[in-house]
């Protein structure tokens, strides 16, 4: 894809200008993050003296306070349990359904497919009230499984939509050949479909992990007790109460944001491919 570059007569000068423009946008993106990391690792007195500039010395006190006094370690553990189990369950259900809808037509499969697409477009405000009332009817408000049900349910429509497209790209010829060799549904699924669609499944897993990790509304309402909180709502409540202790808020921001940033660094190649999916770009 170097054709554009080839068109340039004054390639060097243009490239320098472009690079400088990119750098200045990158600074507006990165500086706030850098500032938060710096703030989180300084003492309150040091911060109050001069909000800018580098800290005199680095301290992890704010992190220690958060873990000891605000049980962010419990919040982290709860988050990992909820997000991990919901992700595993919704991936299994979505990939089974996605594979079936892509390769095993049955009467009504089109209708199911369309109903999933339609429900994907619903805003969460419509769902939050009835879901909250239903979960409280089953005494699931305040318990981790309640939130897991919500995440599994809301993940599946997009998951099926995404994986149906992914599995459609698996060539029929391979599946036919396997079938002639006597492979049943599960053999075809695990031995052929899933390995061939691994990149798509990984992309979906990353997108849905980020969605759940960052979700606030359901997590806040369905787990209202302080000690059951997940990270994102715990952060929101810490940030709401301690406006005067900026290093503490900054540390909470760092704890919540770091896993997602690490995930971005590790899976950028999947996100670059996966994010434009479903936009009709071809």
């Amino acid at each position, binding site marked *: 894809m170097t054709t554009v570059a080839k068109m340039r007569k004054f390639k060097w000068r243009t490239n320098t200008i472009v690079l400088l423009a990119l750098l200045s*946008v990158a600074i507006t993106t990165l500086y706030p993050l850098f500032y938060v990391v710096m703030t989180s690792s300084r003492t309150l007195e040091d911060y109050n003296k001069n909000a800018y500039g580098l800290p005199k010395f680095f301290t992890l006190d704010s992190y220690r306070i958060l873990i000891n006094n605000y049980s962010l370690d419990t919040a982290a553990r709860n988050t990992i349990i909820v997000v991990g189990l919901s992700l595993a369950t919704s991936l299994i259900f979505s990939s089974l359904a996605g594979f079936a809808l892509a390769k*095993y037509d049955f009467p009504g499969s089109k209708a199911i497919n369309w109903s999933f697409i339609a429900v994907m477009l619903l*805003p969460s*405000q*419509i769902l939050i009230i009835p879901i909250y*009332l239903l979960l409280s009817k089953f005494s699931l408000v305040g318990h981790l499984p309640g939130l897991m049900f919500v995440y599994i349910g809301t993940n599946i429509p997009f998951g099926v939509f995404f994986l149906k497209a992914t599995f459609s790209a698996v060539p029929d010829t391979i599946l036919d050949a396997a079938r002639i060799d006597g492979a049943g549904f599960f053999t075809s699924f695990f031995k052929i479909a899933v390995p061939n669609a691994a*990149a798509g499944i990984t992309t979906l897993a990353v997108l849905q992990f980020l969605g759940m990790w960052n979700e606030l509304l359901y997590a806040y309402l369905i787990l209202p007790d302080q000690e059951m909180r997940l990270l994102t709502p715990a952060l929101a409540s810490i940030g*709401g109460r301690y406006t005067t202790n900026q290093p503490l808020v900054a540390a909470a921001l760092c704890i*919540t944001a770091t896993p997602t940033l690490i995930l971005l660094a590790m899976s950028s190649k999947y996100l670059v491919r996966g994010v*434009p999916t479903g936009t009709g770009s071809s």
Partner: protein
Amino acid sequence: MTSPAVVEVGPSRGPTFAGGRKSRSSRGSLTRQKQRIGFFATLPAFIVVASLLFYPIGYAIWISFLKTDGVTSKFIGFKNYVDIFAAPLVHQVFLTNLKFLVAIPVVIFAGLFTAVLLYQEVWGWRFFRIVFFLPSVLSASVIGLMFRSAFTLNGPINSALISLGLTPINFFARANMAILVVVLALIWAGFGYAMMILLSGLMAIDSDLFAAAEVDGAGWWQRFWYIIIPSIRQQLAFVSIINTLYTFTSLFGFIFVMTAGGPLYSTTTLDYLVYQKAFSAYDMGQGSALAIIIFGVIATLTVAQSKYLRNDDGR
């Protein structure tokens, strides 16, 4: 070509794996068996979606006709809807929500600007692409708190203003200033996603078009207006639709951590008002009715926008 293979591939055509390829009648039982397998493999997902999404939607419509706090309830017909349409607060909140739309042109412009720059594929462009996408993986709470900390009365923005000899501004005590800060957060948070979508459109442009334009002596602006913009029309449409939807349905996280809807109701958005009605005032019926009205509004907007943006080919 960065857009994934999954996008282009429709349902498989011709003789399919499912259909069997030769004499259909002799394979009849096999086909039926395949259909059964397909049905049972889809069933778990369908049951989950039916019980956790379809049923609640019906339930939401039912609740919207009730006066209920979640414990006791009374059927009151369309009264919730009538009350909402009559309430000055709802009108005010709707107008406030329109103000947040200001972020969208800026997001699209910034996304397009960065996408076009990245398209030059200068040294390190892949790195910059990830950097611009960074805010998109952060939660609204993280971004909202970052901006609130920055713009708070004794925060870094104000201390910068003081050191420049200006008076500090209490951003969150003034309606339009508070909206401005939220809008800034939305732009910072959102332009990377727009960039990613638009860049995938740019990458798909046939390079012969540029070669031909060069032969014709087209300048940069001409190439921009006559090749780039028409080629990524679909992506531009998608980005503007998705951002409009987002503005009406997904500001909750930002508002919740930044302003809690205040001062007074001046930064309360429609989705935040649903939350307040249902879970602060415990009026689940009105909350549901409002949510359904919002859905009606955004569905209309989406249809209108996609009609307008798709049919505008002739220009």
